[in-house]
């Protein structure tokens, strides 16, 4: 999970500056970063489910 999460963060830095840099619409980086945030939140929720005292 940690590796998946960190890979997602790397993509959040790279994709908007490469693949999406010419897409000047809301369906470009705007949409991508929203999807990134939702996926990141879901992964964090999954990690927190494994917490035990």
């Amino acid at each position, binding site marked *: 999970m*940690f590796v998946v*999460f960190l890979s*997602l*963060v790397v993509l*959040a*830095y790279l994709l*908007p*500056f490469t693949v*999406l*840099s*010419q*897409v*000047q*619409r*809301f369906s*470009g*980086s*705007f949409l991508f*970063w*929203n999807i*990134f*945030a*939702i996926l*990141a*939140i879901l992964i*964090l*929720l999954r*990690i*927190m*489910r494994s*917490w*035990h*005292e």
Partner: protein
Amino acid sequence: MSEQYLWLAIALYAGWGSAFALAVRRGARLSLIEYFLAGRKLHWLIAALSYGATTYSAFMMLGLVGLTYRGGVGALGFELIYLSGLFWAVLVGPKFWEAGKRHGCVSPGEVLSLEYRNPLVGTVYALIVSGFLIPYTSVQLTGIGYLLEVLSRGTIGYPVGLLLALCFIILWTTIAGLRSVAATDALQAGIMMASSVALVFFVVVRLLGGFSAFFHTVETTYPRWLSVPGNGFFTFRTFLNLSLPWFFFSISNPQVFQRLLVPANLGEMRKTITGFLGYGFVYTLITVTLGFGALVLLPDLKNPDLATPTLLLEFPIPSWIVLFVVVGIISAAVSTADSIILTLSSLFLQDILPKGVPERKRLLFAQFLFIPLLCLAVFFFALGRFNLIALLSVTSSLGLLSVVPTIVGAFFGRRKSDRAALLSMILGAVLALLQLGGVRIFGGWTAPSVLGVASGVYFLTGLLAPRGHPPQ
């Protein structure tokens, strides 16, 4: 905007906030854990809202709106990368919470001192974070000063706004410590969200003709604002320098890091973080949308930080929304500043003040010496009237990057060394200061260099440390 209306809104805000703060004071027993951690008994919803109000400051409705205005969609990426940085709280949180609870710690510095078995680690940590947080706290006051000055067209002077903010901070921190701060924070988080939703709907639906028209206008008029580097503001280096410190915000900023000591159990911590993630995502989208709205409605602003106040002043927005938003921005600023002041006073008390002072005296020191002194320092810094809200906020976070390797290493390092922690924090902070002073040692890659140097020094010094120095 009529000055009388502004005063009325401020008076209502002050009245409600103080009533909340006093209501939760009843029955509170005076102890350090009660004062700084609300007795570890905060309800998760209050804790989540308070976490949100503490994290999201005047920066959002002023700085982030301005940053979107200036650089476009990169501001959204920057802020959502910050939100994903809650990863560090999720990673470190359980171990940090457990250590804090086991040893009865109140401040993050105390936990670090125990983990590294050297009280100097906590002292150095406290000094470094205090030094970098005072400018950030002053930014909150600056936001209030500007806002009231612009909206009253100069009749409420900038220093009056600062003094007002100071009064709220001193009052609400001293009444019952975190208990009153969290209660007022929860109220303020509600105001921040409701007021920004009201404003963004009015701007998009009434002034810009609905969401479809708004998207179409931005795409056709400002297409370069929808990609990065786009209009040239968000180069990759700028984006990395701005976002990297904020990716570590949840552990590098002690006012939010300390909140991980508050929950009664890990279940409560999980609910707190989950609640905050939802709040943060929605609030970020709203403020960025507002930035795009301001870009369309006010195309030639000289100072983008003033986009929101100018929007409120120049367009026929109903007075109740304007006043609600003003109170929302004041709320955001005050809730961040009072949490920082409370946390810094706990660090001064537990990590800098000599041990052996009785608990009751420590509390008096906090309430009547440290909190007023910190407020004065912040006030005088804010009198400097720095124009760059976004820049000052981020540069403060840059310095705080220097403590990240020490924090992560304390809970995950195989060979914990107090010398490694001290050297890493000091050299990282010095490098951040040099770069803030204009020295470009690593070609302008400010954030990666501070994090890289602090991590490298931590790792290498740890390797050279003698074996047989295990942490407690």
